[in-house]
């Protein structure tokens, strides 16, 4: 719904809300052409599709579809011309790559070095899985071999390292045995049996190690006693932990990669803003305009808004009863501070369908206009009407809250409005400010 594209309001301090404080982010509206014929619509959707994959050269990580800059508009025009001339989307993309390099593609090709981005998570996953598998195999094998006293087992173990690690495992096991016995978890008979079994194996291992030394007087391996000794059969080997960690990393990387290259709707935002989320505040245009991450833009009109206004004006000229166009136009005029024009189109929309739910937004706009011209009573009536038609219209709740808060100083009412707003409006740049104001209303109410 359109109201989910809630206005980005600057709700600064209570006293300073007289300036018109909102603007519709340009990303809310895909660039539409005024013409409505079938072929044009099809072409435009293809243009959007291609434009969304091309990076705007004068912006920070925006597609030329999302960017309001002049160059991006010109590039969209080139896309349109080339598509209209019969080129395929791939050919158009290739053309831009031939001019700007692969940089111009927002989604890099899965080849060369780029491929690592695609493959690394998979490799990590396989690696981690293998580590876990091997570790579990060893763990299980060790558990079963330890269950049976096998005097010949030491002889079967050829590897000096293996013998050593088995020896330290047995030593640890013997210590543990004593502890278990002292703690009363083992009977003396069991303790004796196990100790005898382990000691027998230990002796065999020591024997085997001695023979190894004689047979091959290799320099003693610099295995420090503090080396991570494989734990006794009762403990999960550290390798499993490592493996699990690596596998987890792989999974997380794979999931986040998948999330970051999720297919967008044509014209959707490249930052992956979902339909329910608030549109981000826009910079006026290119690279320099970025910054102040969450800060809403104040009264700045992107070229795209002017473009959109021109399109809507054309629609209204053709059909003066085009209510959605009238309401959107009312919003954009309001954003630009063109109050008189905004009032005109909003009034037209109100006259067309005074009792339709969709008209609630026009009433909300009228409320804001009236308030900013000092007509507080009229503003409240208009907002009441808006909320009557659409009880949860975030804009109306927001404006009404502001007026209660900053105008009438009715903190209780303001609090109710802001609470309702927070409950129904999707999170946006306004959320934090509304929360701040909500806190202020509560603070003002405490005697």
């Amino acid at each position, binding site marked *: 719904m359109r109201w989910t594209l809630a206005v980005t309001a600057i709700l600064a301090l209570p006293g300073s809300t007289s300036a018109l404080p909102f603007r519709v982010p340009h990303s809310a509206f895909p660039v539409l052409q005024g013409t409505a014929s079938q072929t044009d619509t099809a072409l435009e959707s293809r243009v959007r599709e291609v434009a969304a994959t091309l990076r705007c*050269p*004068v912006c920070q990580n925006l597609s030329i579809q999302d960017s309001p*800059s*002049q*160059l991006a508009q*010109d*590039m969209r*025009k*080139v896309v349109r*011309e*080339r598509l209209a*001339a019969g080129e395929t989307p791939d050919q158009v993309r290739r053309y*831009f*790559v*031939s*001019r*700007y*390099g692969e*940089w111009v593609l927002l989604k890099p090709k899965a080849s060369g070095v780029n491929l*690592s981005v695609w493959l690394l998570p998979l490799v990590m996953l396989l*690696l981690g899985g293998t580590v876990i598998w091997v570790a579990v195999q060893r763990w299980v094998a060790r558990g079963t071999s330890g269950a049976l006293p096998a005097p010949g087992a030491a002889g079967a173990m050829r*590897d*000096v*390292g*293996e013998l*050593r*690690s088995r020896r330290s495992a047995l030593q640890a096991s013997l210590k543990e045995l004593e502890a278990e016995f002292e703690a009363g978890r083992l009977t003396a008979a069991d303790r004796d049996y196990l100790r005898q079994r382990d000691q027998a194996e230990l002796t065999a291992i020591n024997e085997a190690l001695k023979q190894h030394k004689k047979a091959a007087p290799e320099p003693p*391996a610099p*295995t420090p006693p503090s*080396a*991570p000794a494989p734990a006794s059969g009762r403990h999960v080997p550290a390798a499993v932990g*490592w493996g699990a960690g*690596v596998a987890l990393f792989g999974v997380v990387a794979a999931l986040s990669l998948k999330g970051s290259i999720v297919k967008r709707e044509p014209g959707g935002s490249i930052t992956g803003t979902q339909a329910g989320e608030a549109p981000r505040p826009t*910079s*006026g*245009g*290119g*690279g*320099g*305009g970025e910054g102040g991450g969450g800060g809403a833009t104040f009264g700045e009109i992107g*070229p795209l808004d*002017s473009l959109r206004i021109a399109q809507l004006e054309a629609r209204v000229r053709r059909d003066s009863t085009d209510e959605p166009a009238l309401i959107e136009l009312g919003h954009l005029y309001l954003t630009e501070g063109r109050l008189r024009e905004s009032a005109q189109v909003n009034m037209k929309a109100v006259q067309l369908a005074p009792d339709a739910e969709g008209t609630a937004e026009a009433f909300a706009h009228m409320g804001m206009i009236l308030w900013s011209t000092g007509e507080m009573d009229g503003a409240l009536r208009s907002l009441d009407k808006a909320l009557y038609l659409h009880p949860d219209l975030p804009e109306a709740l927001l404006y009404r809250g502001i007026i209660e808060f900053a105008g009438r100083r009715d903190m209780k009412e303001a609090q109710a409005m802001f609470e309702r707003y927070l409950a129904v409006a999707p999170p946006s740049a306004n959320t934090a400010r509304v929360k701040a104001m909500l806190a202020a209303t509560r603070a003002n109410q405490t005697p």
Partner: protein
Amino acid sequence: MHWRRWLVPLSALPVLALLAWGLTRDAHTIPSPLPGKAAPDFALQTLSGDSLHLHDLTGQPVLVNFWASWCLACRGEHQVLVDAAQRYGPKGLRVVGVVYEDTRDNAQQWITERGGTWPNVLDIGSHTAIQYGLFGVPETFFIARDGRIVYKQIGPLDPAVIDQWVPKLLASSAAIGPNVPEQPFAQGKSEGYVRTSPDFPATRGTTPPR
């Protein structure tokens, strides 16, 4: 057994190598595919209303300089171009200015105030800018006699860059770089044309890209 102790540190090596490679690169360096290739041709109207066809300049070294009157960096650069045109013009260097995202009046006023005798063309709709893979202004393309782009300067020119490249352009009619184009000046179906666009917004000069 010992090799296993090195397994974890060793497995971190490729990751570290990747990070070392990625983090030591200048993320702002964007390799242009254009140097070595034929300069995209254009035929555009000059500020004085004549038509200028880049193809007509084949055989002469050319500096194609993209600029705009709203561009601060272009101010300092302009004098470098004036000097270059004075020094190397008599030896055969041609300079062509391409006015980017600007109005004829603003551009004309700029030239009147700051001098410069070389032709400046209006790139309405930025077709030529896009052909040249422009990121912003100023950018300058050094084009050899054979119509091939030899060097692309992103950002303002300075005398050292001029002195480094222009003598090479003047000295040689043969290839300077590794690639020789099959034909001078790429000719494509929409490779630049004179056009007066009725939908050209009047406000363009006042809303430069940032």
